[in-house]
Structure formats: C-alpha cells, structure tokens
C-alpha cells in the first residue's frame, strides 16, 4: 500500500461501522471476514476499516439484539460464525439510514451552501 493510496481513503466515522454492518447483512447471513470484504468492495476500497474493529462492533450489535449469530460453514469449508439481521435489526437499520441521510444532507448543505441556493 503506497502512501498516496492511503491518503485517498476515508477514515470511518465513529458509529457508522454499525450502520454499515447492518446494511451489509440485509443481503443475508454471512461471516466476519466476508462482511469486512463486502464493506471495502462496495465502497470501492475508499472506506478503510481496520478489519479487527469489526468484531467488537458485531458483539455490540448482538448485545443490542439487532443481529444474531449461528454456526455455519465458510467458502473454504471451515466452521465459522454467521451473523444475521434480526427483525429488530431491520427496523433499526431504517432508523439509522434515515438518521444518516439527515446528517449527510445537513453536512452537504453546510459544505456547499451555493449549490443549495440554486
């Protein structure tokens, strides 16, 4: 990884990781490494997450009851933990998304006031 590349990546905002995990899991249950991969791929490698930080976040979401965990088999035929969105998690995702939209909109308006006026 070159220094240039590093600069183009965006540090993850505190708390947004939860949102990204929930969003990723909408597509179906999957294991930790795949979640990390999916987040990176979807954002065209712009969002840089320290993959390890995924796990405390997953535990936090389980504790809140937004996702559940089950034993499953990964693509290379090894036992792995599969994380799945719960009904409460789905509802929470909607809340989080609308919250995020509001926040993003607000920030956008502040950063580009002229565009907004047009």
């Amino acid at each position: 990884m070159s220094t240039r590349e590093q600069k183009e990546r965006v540090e993850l905002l505190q708390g947004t990781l939860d949102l990204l995990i929930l969003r990723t899991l909408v597509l179906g249950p999957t294991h930790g490494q795949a979640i990390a991969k999916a987040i990176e791929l979807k954002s065209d490698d712009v969002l840089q997450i320290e993959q390890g930080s995924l796990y405390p976040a997953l535990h936090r979401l389980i504790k809140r009851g937004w996702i559940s965990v089950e034993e499953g088999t990964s693509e290379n035929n090894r036992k792995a933990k599969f994380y799945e969105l719960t009904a409460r998690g789905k509802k929470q995702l909607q809340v989080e998304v609308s919250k995020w939209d509001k926040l993003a909109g607000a920030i956008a308006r502040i950063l580009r006031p002229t565009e907004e006026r047009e």
Partner: protein
Amino acid sequence: MNRKGKQLLEDLDQEIREHIELETQENIGRGMSPGEARYAALRKFGNVTRVKEDARGVWIPVWLEQLLQDIRYAFRLLHKSRAYTVVAILTITLGIAATTAIFSIFYATLLVPFPYPEPDQLVVVWSMANGHRRQVSAGDFLDWQRDNQVFQVLGAVRGDQFNLSTGARPEQIEGSYLTPGFLDQLIGDKPFMGRYVLPEEAVPGKDHVVIITHKLWQRYFAGDPNILNKKIHLNGQPYTVIGVQPPGQPDRLGRQLVVPLAFTPEQLNHDAWWLVVLGRMKSGVSIAQAKADLDRIARRDAELYPADKGWGVSVEPLKNDFLDRDVQTGLNLLMGAVGFLLLIACANVANLLLARGTTRHREVAVRASIGASRTQIFRQFLIESLVLAGLGGILGIGLAWVLMKVILAAMPPYMLLSETDVKMSMPVLLFTVASTMLSGVLFGCAPAWQAAGLNLNEALKEGGRPPSADRQRMRRGLVIAEFALALSLLAGGGQAIHSFWNVEHVNLGFRSDHLLAFDLPVNEGKLDGAAKINSFYREVLGEINALPGVTHAAVSEGMPLLGVRFGMPFQIAGKEMEDMSRRPVTGFNMVTPQFFNVYEIQMLEGRSLTPEDEEGGRRVAVVDERFAKQFLSGMDPLSQRIVMNEMVPGAMKLGPPVEWQIVGVYRSMQNGRPEAGNFPEMDVPFWQCPWPQARITVRASIDPDLLAKSISDVVQSLDPDLPLSNLQTMDRTLEQVAHGSRFLAFLFGGFAGIGMLLAAVGIYGVMSFAVVQRTHEIGVRMALGASRSGVLGMILKDGMVLTMAGFLLGILGAYGVGKVMHGILFNVAAFDYWGFGVVAGALLLAGILACFVPAHRATLVDPMKALRQE
C-alpha cells in the same frame, strides 16, 4: 456477563484466526508470496489484543474489568511477598476479631430492637424525687392506671421466687406477678397454648392460675400435651396451669412462670414501693405528654397521701433500663478499647505498606512511565489494601466467633440481662464488613497517596533509594499516633488490672474464712407476725449452734459484700419531721447479736448488740463509721436517736415512726460490692424488727463445706418444705464478687496487651526501617570521622523526639480514658500513676530498643561496604 457473550468471547480467538487465514488465502490468490500474504492480512486486521479487549469491553463494564484486573494483580503481589502479607493479614485479623466480638455483645445488649410490636410505645414509669428513682406503690399504680389518659395499658410486675413442688424434686424457680393484660396487650405476646390472665383472675382467692414458659413446660413437665388445666403446687398452694408462653424470647428470661398480681387490701397503700411499672402509650402520644399526664395525677396524690409528698414521675423509653449502669459504661469502654486496637492495627499495616512502598517505588515508576495515570496507581494501591483488609476481615469473623464464646464464658453471669441473645447476627456482620472496608481505606490511603504522587524523574534516577522527606514525615506521624493510641489503651488496661488487684486485696473489715451462709426463703404467709418469726428463728439458731464444728451462728437480712435488703429514709430525733422524700436514706440491716462475732467486726465506740436487746425491750441500734461520719459529724453518736417508720413484718407497708437509740459504732466493713462502693449502714436487733425471710451465717471451727450437710438436715427436720438456697462459703462469695473486676481486668488487660504488642512491633518496625535506610548516610558520616557514639546519639535522639511526642499525646489520651473509666473501677484514681508508669515504661523501652538495636548494627558496618551498597 451473559452466556451468549461468554461463548462469543471464548470463540473469538478461533474466529480471528479463521479471518486472517481467509484473508491470507485471498492475498495469495492475488499473487502475493505466502509470507507477504500473511503479513498483509495481519496488518489489515489491526491490533488483535486490542480487538479482544474491546470485545470484552462490550460485555463487561470497563470499570469492573479493571477492578477484577487490579484484584488479580493484588493477589499476585500479595502471594509474591508472603511474609509481609501474613503479618499484615494477621494484624488486621486481630483488630477486626476484637472489634466484632465486642460489637456482637454491645449490639445484643444495647442496640438490638425489642422483639415486640411497636416497641416505641413501650415505657417504664418510676416515681422520682430529687433525681432519685424508686419503684412504685400499689396505691400510686392503681391511681395512675385508673386516671391516666395517655396509655393503652399500664401494667405492674414484681419478681419473686416460687417453690415448685409438683414433680419428684421440689425446685426453687424465679417467676413474676403480673397485672392482667401485661403479656398480651402491653408486650404484645400471644400464648403458645391456652390463654393469659383475665382481669377477673387478679382478685385474691381467684388468682391461683399460672402461665409457664415453653422452656419450663419442656424441662419440668416433659412437654406434657395435656398440661392445660392441670394443678401444680407453688409454695405449697395448688395453681391451675392456664397457658404456655411461646418459645424464644420469653425462654431467655430468668423468670419462668407468671401468676396474676392480685393486690390484697393491706397492700393498697402509698407507703411501700415495690412495683415496676410498664406502659404502652396510645399511638401518637409522646413521652413528654405521658409524663405530663402522670405528673398531674402525682401532684394530686401528693396532696392526699403524706408518703407521696414531693414525688413526681419519670417516664422512660423501655430500653436497657434494667441493665446496670456500670455494665453499660463498661461496654461503651470496651467498644472504645477495641476501636483503639483496630486503629493501632491500621497504623501498623499502613506503616508496613509504606515501608514496602519504598521498595516498590521502582515498579510504580515503571508503570507510570509506560502510561499508568495517577488515578490508576492510586486505585491499584487502594485495592491492594482492600484485598488485604478483606482477607483479614474473613479470618477476623472466624476468630471473633471464638473470642465471643470465650468472653461469654468468662463473663460473670449477672453482668448481662438473662434475655440477652448474643450471636453473630446480620447487623453484626454488616458492622464487620463496614469496619473492614473502613480500615482498608484508612491504612491504604497513605501508601496509595504516596505511590500516586511519586516523582518519576527522581525515582528512576535514584536507582532504588528513596529519600523522600514527605514519606518519612508520614511515617513519623504514624509512629507518634500509634504511640499515643497505645498509651491511652494501655493506661485503661493498667487501670482495670490495678482495680482488680485492689479488689483482691481490699480490706474487708471482717474475717471471711470459715464462714458459711445461706438464705431461708420462707413462703409468704407462713410466718405471720413477729412472735412466730422470732420463735422459728430462735429454734433454727438453737439447733445450728448445737452442731459440732459451729462456733457462732447469726440471723441477718443483709450480708457484707452483697448489700442489705432495705434502704430506709430516716431522721435524727429532736427535729421537726420532714417529708419522706427529703429524708436521707441509710442501708438498714436487722441482725441477731452474734452477727458481729460471726463476722468478727470491730466495735469502735459504745457496745455491740447483746442477747438482752430483745423484743419489747428498748429499741437500740449500732451504726457504722461511715454513718457516724456522714450523718452525725460533730455530735456524740451514742446520745443520738434515729427516727424512722416502723417496718411491718413481711408486709409491703410502713407503720408509724419509731425511735432507735444508738448504742455503738463499729468499724466500717465492705458492705456493698467492691465496684459499686459502700454505703452507711445501721443495724438493729432482729428480734425487735423481725422479717420472715432471712439469711443465716455460721462461723465454723472446721472446714465450712463439711457443715453444709448437717445444717441442711437440721433445717429439714424443722420444716421439710423449706429449701436452703444460695448455700455457700463466704470465700466463694468473695471470689464471685471479684469475678466482675477479674473479667474487666481480663478483657481490658487482654486488649491492652495485644495493643501494646502491636504498637511495640509497629514502632520497632518503623524506627529500625528508618535506620536501615540511613545506613548509607551513616557510612558517609563514619568515613568522614564521626565517632560511633556520636552516630548512635544522633539516631537515638531522632527516635526519642518521636517517642516523646507520642508520649505527651498519650498522656492526654490516658487522662481522658481514665476519667471515663473511673466510675467502674474500684479505688483507682482517674489518672492512675501506678498503672500508667508501668505501661509508659514498657512502651518507652520498646521505642529505645527500636532505635538502639538497628543503630548499633549500623555503626558496626564497615563504612566502605555501606558506601558501596549502591
């Protein structure tokens, strides 16, 4: 943490490994070499340890996690330096055990709430004049009961001995006369079986019903299920059993049966005070209101009855009222003593921790330099102390239980009320936990404070030698405090032991060997009238005097050491009669003439009582020195007459005033319990003022124990129903009387001894440690030419400054302790030079040795070696 979290955390390691493995495979797929691929995967994953910690943090609150970590760390450290840990824990154990054991007795005696409903409504009512309480006359009680507006129930009680003779063996049993409603309405007790006394049963003639305790029912009647309506014999009279009290609290009372208190017409007067009155106030009524209401009635009665003139009432909450004041003071003092002991233990452990802190400052510096905050270090040290305290507390509770049993076994039986239930109850354990935590914080704060305040640069630079003046100051302060505390505690202990010595060596004023005494609890109503009483006792004395081995025998009401039965208001003849409440009171004893020979009491003036002082003759009396000094100073005692109301044999009332001519003065003897003090006494011929129940003392020419059998036989032959009670030699009584002061000496002395040991060890430890730390400096001084004695002098002077400061503070403390203890001790001054001197000397010696030994050792060290120690 729940099960789900626990499972997730357990599997996390495996999950992370799998994650990195997958990532590595993918990297290899992209064409990296296996080594590169793995490195890239690891880098992308980030700090594994932190991930795991963060994940744990989701499930376990951070503070709890840290706390557990600190506790684990503390245990590791304590385990590493085992010797230090054992000493510290044992010290705390001693402190906590002593505190808990005494508190368990303190709590059960003074603090435990009564097991009755609405205990706040319960009060005791006394007659009161000039600050003196007295019991209540039947006339007053009935007036209060009838006319008051503040009580739900007002009840009266009187204790007595009953001769229970239903089964095979007759037994003397304590019981009480109670007014109806006392148990159910006033106390709020429900019968286990049957019922309690009805109002119509409190009438002479219908009052032969009895309620027994569960214990008596089990013990004497073998739990007979058909006990109700059975007839039993009390004092030779048939009584019907109507109820059994519930098990538990009533069983712990000494009194085991209850009969109705039925007033006879002759008892209905205002002259004799023999009832204890208890009341349950109406809800919402305050003690002040109750007192005001009864005072109103008392004022009215004072107008009507001469004996009530000047008397008001005192209404007091029912609370330890029946516990001896001295016992209360003693318990308070013991609590104080163990408090001091605990403080000394804390100071010791604090010192130990401080001393160890100096060897640990390297560790602290390293921890601080890699990022531990001051708060974290402070917390770590405090938690270490709390872990120490906790371990000491746990052991302490065990030791306290043993100590409590030992104390209860050594305690004289009369010291606590019989219903007191001493045990390791929940409140006691809570107290222990609280005092353990408090001590942990107390002895933990100083070292924690120091560790947290450590100057990093200095500590790391100095390479292991801590000269911090601040540290020294704190430890010097502790030494002074410890010295002062120990001195105060020890002064108290010294006083208690001195008091015990005095009791053992008191000048009794009579000869106590070869004496045998016993009570004759003649049944009420059996000997009615002076003539019958006198002829009965003449017969008893005649038979006993005829026994071989008996030198003299005498009948008396009171007895040296145990006090007299009556306290009588009196006046010197020739002045206008005053109200009963304003007359002075003297101890009043009725004795047969041989009394003074039996006890070998010395006459100082006039004559003793003689066989010629018979009934119908001139009323004569002898008084003791104290009486003469206190009431007859400046007069010739032998020309004085004493006026007091006549006693009616066996009746709870007084007759008209009569005069007693003083014919002799005898040398005062120890007439009360040594710790309670003596009182003026006046003795009149028994024959001129007889009483049905009396005590007989025999002077023997042989071992008095050998006489017990023949004397019992003689009394049995005169009256087969009459048991001898309290039969024992005077020497045995003397020993029992000394039991109280021996117990105090044992407890205070024991605690003071432990305190002294702890303090001496603590002082020695701190001082010698300080000297050891100066080994380097001593080396330098000696290398530069200081003489050995000069160095010794310097160090001794330093130590003595501390010792003296502690000594001066200790004198203040000892004076305070002495002032409080004074009341319960026998013939010991508030500031007991004798006890204090011994104690202070011992502590000073410990201090001097603590300076001298290590200082001496330091001067022997080769200066070059000391300097190279770096």
